[in-house]
């Protein structure tokens, strides 16, 4: 499904919805649509970051990544004063 252009990505029923079809057409109209809490949505979205060998953001190719104790495992790092290559 063309997820990004679909209203489903902002719907609170998205995870459990049985109506979502599996075509490539985006869903633009739905009588069951209900807006999800945006805060919840943002938190969920940022967790689905692209991982490269389990690392995200700047850590992808930082030479300290394997032993770094500065970062917290669940956050994506975009700012780091200790980044090294």
């Amino acid at each position, binding site marked *: 499904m063309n997820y990004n252009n679909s209203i489903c990505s902002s719907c609170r029923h998205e995870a459990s919805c049985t109506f979502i079809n599996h075509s490539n057409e985006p869903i633009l109209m739905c009588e069951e649509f209900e807006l999800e809490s945006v*805060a919840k949505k943002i938190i969920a979205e940022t967790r689905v970051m692209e991982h490269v060998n389990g690392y995200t953001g700047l850590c992808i190719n930082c030479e300290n990544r394997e032993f770094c104790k500065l970062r917290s495992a669940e956050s994506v790092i975009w700012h780091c004063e200790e980044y090294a290559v």
Partner: protein
Amino acid sequence: MKYQKEVDSFMYDVIQHNPGESIFHQAVYEVAETIIPFIIENPKYQGKKIMERIAEPERVILFKIGWKDDKGEVQVNRGFRIEMNSCLGPYKGGLRFHSSVTLDSLKFLAFEQVFKNSLTTLSLGGGKGGSDFSPIGKTDDEIMRFCYAFMSEIYKYIGADTDIPAGDIGVGGREIGYLFGQYKKLTNQFTGVLTGKGLEWGGSLLRPEATGFGVVYFMKQMLETRGLSLKGKRVAVSGFGNVSWGAVTKATEMGAKVITISGPDGYIYDPDGISGEKIDYMLEMRFKNTDKVKDFADKYGVEYIPNKKPWEVEADIALPCAIQNELLKDDAEDIIRNNYICVAEGANMPCTSEAVHLFQKAKLLYSPGKASNAGGVAVSGIEMVQNASHYPYKKEEVDERLKGIMSTIHSNCIKYGKDDTGYIDYLKGANIAGFVKVADAMLDQGIV
């Protein structure tokens, strides 16, 4: 939260309008949480769609960068420049060369930069740029060819009065040199089109120290709001990079005792204080590139605590100067339990929002990086002033101006962050102060 519905409604539009850009969504949300309530309570800003306008880049430049590697093979990368907001001055923000660079991550960084630059009180708009090019494993020649190719595309859009990029991750003095060289060839102009230049050809004195020095100047003023001085205070610092080196240097010079620094491997505890040649050794460790703070403990016979963070030690002041989200809820609890007086961020966003809420609840002096680490961008602004006047300042002149800027930022945080009980919420103060300056300029300039 009060006005959650209004924040959600605004964010809904942002998400629909920028699909798939989750990093950008989060950045906008964090600002909207403070600013939308402020807009609702201040009629001057209502009905003008100010936040909608700020969240939309004025211009996004996306371009192909073709270049040849040492084997003669053609490589293709993608280049970006996000010109986010120019109401306060020419776009200003770093260039990042890293494989994680995307439109989404750069829009997030550009959005942050608008408010950060506004806070400095200098005439700086906000922007960010870069490429998904990774300098890792590339030869000097390859990096030069890439920088030339990058500049060959972007030079049309930048200029000393239009858009002034700086360095960031993957773009240091060497890359700025190559970029500047190509700009000069293409335009036949020697202007302040980039900052972070070499000292001999337009760079500013004190740039490497600026962020760390600025943090300490800001933290000193925070203490003064409670009638305290820096003299004799024990300071726990994380990191041993540029920012922490500057902060350790200045804090020690001003009579504080820095008892920790940390690295990716753990931290060291030096109860006698890090001063004199020990500070010089921090620089040496960087040059050696071992990235292990244990070296410091081995050389000076101080305690080394592997795999731990420095916030567990008893101290008066915490300066997180290493990495985003390094100081978590548990660390904040340690800091509160150990009766710290002040936490001033030296890195960008090192404290998680849970940690910040705990500091605010405990009425600790806490300042966000956008305020306390603005010294770096402030000295970049001072570099622009020197370039425009073709007159380099002495170190003392730059330092005086830096102190003045940090002092103004502090006053603005108080102006918008002080509540009825006298507590200063520096986060709220910094967010609103940054917003008000941009919003007022936008209103003055019509529909921009």
